[in-house]
């Protein structure tokens, strides 16, 4: 340490050495240099190949959640079909069939069940067709209202007013052993359950169909 030449100000030694070695390699002749470049290219190619081979399982792993909608869905019972009062709309909740132990409360899913006849039901997703916020049912005025942007739906799920482009999403249902079952397991959105289709029902406001596009020929 006592040696004054240890001072950082004399930095020139490093670059000098580099330059010297560069000159040395130039003197080794073009054949040797091109062989080194070839080896370097071989090294890059090897790493590229291994990278590609590794990319396959990595991409497969990353895309694991992407599946057909049906593979996520299954039939879930919402209770005895008789337990729903005729002509009324009830909020029910069920456990999402596709769960992990660490899902916590998020595996509770809600739906609105409307009983229209002896075994006639409509089961609505609670998600507003605009941006998915949970709509609330008001039995007094027979309307669903969304708290986010004020989308409103009639009792049959058709669009009444506000920004939604279509009516509420519905679940497929069946009655099995007296139980009302729905085909659920997937967050309803415009890309799966119902798509952006016209589900116009009797009495729907004509203007509501503006956004519903080429389904009316």
């Amino acid at each position, binding site marked *: 340490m006592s040696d004054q030449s240890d001072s950082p100000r004399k930095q020139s030694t490093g670059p000098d050495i580099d330059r010297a070695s560069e000159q040395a390699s130039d003197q080794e002749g073009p054949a040797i240099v091109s062989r080194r470049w070839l080896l370097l290219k071989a090294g890059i190619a090897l790493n590229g190949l291994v990278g590609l081979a590794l990319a396959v399982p990595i991409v497969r792993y990353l895309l694991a*959640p992407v599946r057909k909608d049906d593979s996520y869905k299954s039939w879930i019972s919402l209770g005895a079909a008789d337990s729903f009062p005729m002509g009324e709309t009830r909020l029910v*909740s069920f456990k999402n069939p596709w769960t992990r132990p*660490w899902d916590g409360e998020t595996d509770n899913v809600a739906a609105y069940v409307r009983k229209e006849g002896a075994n006639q039901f409509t089961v609505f997703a609670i998600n507003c067709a*605009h941006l998915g*916020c949970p709509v609330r049912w008001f039995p007094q*005025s027979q*309307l669903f209202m969304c708290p986010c942007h*004020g989308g409103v739906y009639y009792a049959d799920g058709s669009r009444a007013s506000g920004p939604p482009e279509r009516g509420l999403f519905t679940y497929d249902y069946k009655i099995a052993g007296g139980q009302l079952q729905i085909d659920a397991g997937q967050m309803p959105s415009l890309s799966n359950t119902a798509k952006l289709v016209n589900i116009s029902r009797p009495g729907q406001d004509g203007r509501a169909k503006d956004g519903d596009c080429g389904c009316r020929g």
Partner: protein
Amino acid sequence: MKQGRTQMWKQVYDWFERRLQIEGPIKDAVLHKVPRNTASWWYVFGSAAFTLLMLQIVTGILLALVYVPSGAEAWNSLNILNHQVPLGWFLRAMHGWGSDFMVAVVFIHMAQVFLFGAYKFPRELTWTVGVFLLLMTLGMAFTGQVLRFDQDAYWGLGIGVFILSRVPWMGGGLVHLLLGGPTIAGATLSRFFALHVFVIPGTLLFLVAMHVWMVLKLGINEWPMPGRLVRKSTYIAEYNKLAHEDGIPFIPGAFWKDLIFSGAVLAAVAVCAAVFGPYGPGGQPDPSITQTVPKPDFPFLWIYAVLSYLPPSMETPFILTAPILMIAGLLAVPFVAGEGEKSWHRRPVAVLALTSVALAWAVFTHLATYTPWSPHMSAWSGDTLPVKYLRAATPLVRQGAVIFQAKQCRNCHSIGGQGGERGPALDAVATRMTLDQMRYKVVTGGGNMPAYGKNLSPPEIEALVSFLETLHPANEQPAIDASQQATQSSALPAPASGSSPP
């Protein structure tokens, strides 16, 4: 003795410097000359954004000591941070307010850089990297909101799902990728944790290094002067001349202002954190609880407002193209206007564009804060009718008032300053609409109003419009239509003219 100690420190320093060899680059960075008038209070926002990034990293690591990134536990762990861990609330508040400040400062920095023409040659790439830094900052804000994992986080993600699901063909797959499964659940939180803590901060730090490197290599943008044009052939020489002839060393000449502003910003974050406290968490992330009014965090409020004003037919085209056009527009700025004037005195279009964007942003954020379009879900049962409207009411009018409350009209229409604002206030509705018009509107709806014809019986409609007809100031007559007016005006002077009544 003292000299000996100094000698010893010098030796220790030299030992490290011999190996690190970092003194030269640091000295270059610290002492490089900057044009004298860039040592300005206008040039402090970039360093403040960097300081806030450091604050976010430090507070983020401290929060990660307690936070549990599990769908089942995240919400609980935040409540424990808020209420049980000593000063956990303060750390959460610092991180939350630091986030808002960082977004704000990054936007201000961008506006300043745009206004000063700093994106022009040779700093195009600095601007481009800056655009990605802005996107990363917004990405941090959104993923951070998700990590709060309360109702707002849940339904905010739901909005993300509904936006992504509109992408043609790939929508479903993109939604699955975003959520890590078919629904918002534990897998979703895990991947947003990875994004918020590893992926985005890593990218952010790399891009920041690139950004700062280019600022050092290319020099800070000189103060724009009207008439001093940027030309690719001459700019570098002109800039170097300016920096050397009328330059001062970056430290301390300009840096003291950066330091003071950064310190003030940090202090402001701490004061906001201490006074206003942490954000939430709000209600637990149970999607079966529909009694919720989801709202995004501050940086995204404007989007929330824009999405409510779009006509339904515009929704999908807008959502799919607007973000791409916005980002493309920002990226294109230096390539469209890479040369020429830098001064805002000679760039009216730039000034107008910036002002318009800022105004639009402010208006939409204000609208979203006061949500005039969201129904007030409890107005029908919670807000009372002012007594003065019912003082002289007939039984039919009173019945109408009951219907007005019970059928949730109040959720969208205010009376006496209380109630929703989605529809117009009805305090003086009778002066605007005739009885027939009101009846028609109630039955058929239209615009943003549902048709109540299906849900109200004819007697209920009669009672309701009777009540609405009383809603006018005492000194103003209710509206009547032209035919009524004609019969009234012809009926009044009739006796004077002497003709016999019909």
